[in-house]
């Protein structure tokens, strides 16, 4: 009898050990997210929280293919001006409200018309929405817009409970109500954001945690120390310089994915009087600067080789990368020759502004020293980010070291920067051919057609070089080795479907 009991207990233990439902998954973030309203928010870390809180119409695969999420299918009309989506049935928001076509229409309306919406430009092409039936919605576009579907894979596609947005208005972010795997529990600014499992989630079986806690810990060393101490299960944006030591640690794993974004030097070519300098006026000088930079050494010195070198708005591993223009090797002689040809045989001095955070200033100091060897003396103007941005958009700069977080659709990484009058074209670069290539690329939904347009645009970009691209960050996650099933995505998000912790 006693033996039987013992055996039974052992069997029970055997089934329960192995996969234990961890009560709480703790994730270390690099910074504190801003307001938790997908229509209002702007930070990258905010999106990491949304990945567990707010499901979107569509999602992406790690290879950037668009896949169904809240929308189960979609169809374009022949001229690409109408998009019809069928929606998942039986989905409810965290407040019990049903998800349906009316809810989608209300969400698009809020993204477009809410006074404080930051999503306006992303859904601008939608002229009207038509509720066909409860689970079918049609978007009528003012012009073909191949980029729209990809917008639905991000904040514009996040579905918020229309009842909650109606009641809370602009205060929605204090208590967000979505349709994701976890619902909002509490937030203490700069300390933590706690989400708890949403029992009625339509894919609840893939979620293995009762709650998830996000802890903003800006200091990378401290973040890692907390992971090592077992206070965290995973952290995002491990410092590249900590990668080797994290990989060597038996208790930890490192996962990586090349980001969709880039870092570069934006050059003022026509934005006010500050553009009137050799760098702004002469493409040869810009090319010389690019040639003077040893991108591999930069990557080695600052990121221990963990990041990806680059020379285009897309990383060399992206399908949109133009292989005719590989990442250039450093060539000091060629740079000097270009300078001499342009009439600066004795070298020249330029000012580059940079955000005064340790990593970006380190990048610019390395470039400063490299460019110096080619006769380009760089004077660094370190500014706080808010000042840097204001100066850049006002044209109060010669060159500016800044990056872009990247978008799923190729349009997002280049159109607004290179077209005449583009929203973030702080170079004020303007070229009719470039405009044509980039606008045409928006019209077709056929990737092959689009690829041709982007190839042409990048060839033109390499010639005029209003932005000197430097490198593509690689997202690095460090995880406790007990964490299972984590998939790195190039958008840097943490998707918890299928993730578990074994003890």
């Amino acid at each position, binding site marked *: 009898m006693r033996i039987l009991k013992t055996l039974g207990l052992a069997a029970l233990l055997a089934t329960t050990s192995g996969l234990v439902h961890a009560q709480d998954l703790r994730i270390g973030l690099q910074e504190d997210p801003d307001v938790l309203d997908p229509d209002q928010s702007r930070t990258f870390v905010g999106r990491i929280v949304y990945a567990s809180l707010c499901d979107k119409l569509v999602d992406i695969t790690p290879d950037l293919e668009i896949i169904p999420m809240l929308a189960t299918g979609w169809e374009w009309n022949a001229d690409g001006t109408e998009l019809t989506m069928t929606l998942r049935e039986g989905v409810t928001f965290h407040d019990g409200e049903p998800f349906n076509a009316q809810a989608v229409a209300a969400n698009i309306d809020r993204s477009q018309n809410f*006074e404080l919406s930051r999503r306006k430009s992303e859904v601008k092409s939608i002229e009207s929405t038509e509720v066909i039936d409860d689970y079918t919605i049609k978007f009528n576009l003012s012009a073909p817009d191949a980029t729209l579907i990809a917008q639905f894979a991000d904040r514009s596609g996040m579905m918020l409970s229309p009842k909650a947005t109606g009641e809370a208005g602009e205060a929605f972010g204090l208590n967000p109500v979505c349709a994701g795997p976890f619902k909002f529990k509490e937030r203490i*600014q*700069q300390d933590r954001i706690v989400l708890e499992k949403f029992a009625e989630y339509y894919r609840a079986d893939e979620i293995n945690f009762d709650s998830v806690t996000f802890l903003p810990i800006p200091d990378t*060393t401290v973040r890692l120390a907390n992971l090592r101490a077992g*206070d965290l299960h995973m952290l995002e944006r491990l410092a590249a310089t900590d990668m080797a030591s994290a990989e060597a640690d038996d208790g930890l794993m490192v996962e990586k994915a090349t980001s969709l974004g880039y870092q570069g030097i934006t050059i003022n070519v026509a934005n006010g009087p500050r553009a009137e300098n050799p760098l702004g006026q002469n493409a040869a000088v810009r090319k010389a600067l690019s040639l003077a930079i040893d991108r591999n050494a930069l990557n080695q010195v600052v990121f221990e080789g963990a990041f990806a070198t680059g020379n285009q708005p897309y990383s060399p591993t992206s399908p949109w990368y133009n292989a005719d223009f590989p990442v250039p090797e450093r060539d000091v002689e060629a740079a000097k020759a270009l300078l001499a040809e342009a009439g600066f045989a004795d070298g020249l001095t330029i000012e580059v502004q940079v955000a005064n955070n340790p990593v970006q200033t380190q990048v610019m100091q390395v470039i400063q020293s490299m460019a110096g060897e080619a006769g380009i003396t760089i004077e660094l103007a370190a500014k706080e980010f808010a000042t840097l941005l204001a100066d850049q958009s006002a044209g109060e700069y010669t060159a500016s070291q800044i990056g872009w*977080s990247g978008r799923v659709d190729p349009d997002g990484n280049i159109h607004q920067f290179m077209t005449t009058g583009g929203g973030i074209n702080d170079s004020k670069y303007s070229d009719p051919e470039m405009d044509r290539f980039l606008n045409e690329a928006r019209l077709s939904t056929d990737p092959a057609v689009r690829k041709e347009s982007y190839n042409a645009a990048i060839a033109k970009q390499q010639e005029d070089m209003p932005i000197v691209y430097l490198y593509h960050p690689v997202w690095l996650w460090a995880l406790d080795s007990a964490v299972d099933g984590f998939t790195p995505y190039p958008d840097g998000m943490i998707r918890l479907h299928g993730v578990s912790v074994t003890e």
Partner: protein
Amino acid sequence: MLAFLARRVFIAIPTVILISLFVFSLQHLLPGDPILVMAGEERDPEVIAALREKYRLNDPIPVQYLAWAGNALQGDLGISLRTQQPVLELIAEKLPVTIQLAVMALAIAILIGIPAGVLSAYKKGTWIDWVANITALSGLSVPNFWLGIMLILLVSVKLGWLPASGYMPLSEDPLQSIRTMLMPAFVLGTAIAATLMRHTRSAMLSVLKSDYVRTARAKGLRESVVLIKHALRNALVPVVTVITLLFGELLAGAVLTEQIFTIPGFGKLVVDAVFNRDYAVVQAIVLCTGIAFILMNILADAAYRVLNPRMSEQ
């Protein structure tokens, strides 16, 4: 006493107005446009215009000031531009954290500073005095952010004894809460301990020279009784005053300490707000600390009068 307090509060009013003007104009003179950052990476002009309108940044600055001051008088300090939380709520959320840190730091400082000061005064001129003095000066001289970094390196990264960061509310898990706060409180406490030690020493020295200590000794009382019951009790009067005045120093020290140890308190709130150009938060915090500081000063004076009745006759 009441008349004294009333007079002091009345005098403080123009100071508070000055602070509010100062804080307000400083924020509006800060370079960099918070709206550009808030508008997000795309910086959609339409969004920028809407945000400016929304936060009334298009109004003339005097109009903005009056609107702000009017609301502040009614207890409405605005909302955080970054997270849209009401600022008052934010302050209420952060204040207990910093108070806990400050109280723990002060406790550590008193435990170290006062005995060291008494001992050093009592042993004036000996090597004990000299060592205590040098140690105190070292405590004053060490940059506390560096001390914090070094402690994280040693205690958390190398030895793994205490967590490197994080905060646990006292109400949830008191033991863990004190554990996480131990290192930061020590870092913050060192400079305060040194200041306290120096003040205690100097107060003790003058008390030890006084007539009643001499009388007490002459009466043949035990030295420890003389020291503690007669000397220290009197010496504590100015020391208590100093402790109230150290409030400002604790707050300023907390700014960096919280930054290093990622403690979600007042100091971290204000630094992040300055960097994010979160106007409403910076204004409210500086205003509140300013008022608190003035109140502490008035309290210190009042305490001094109560503890030292001779003063009130003047």
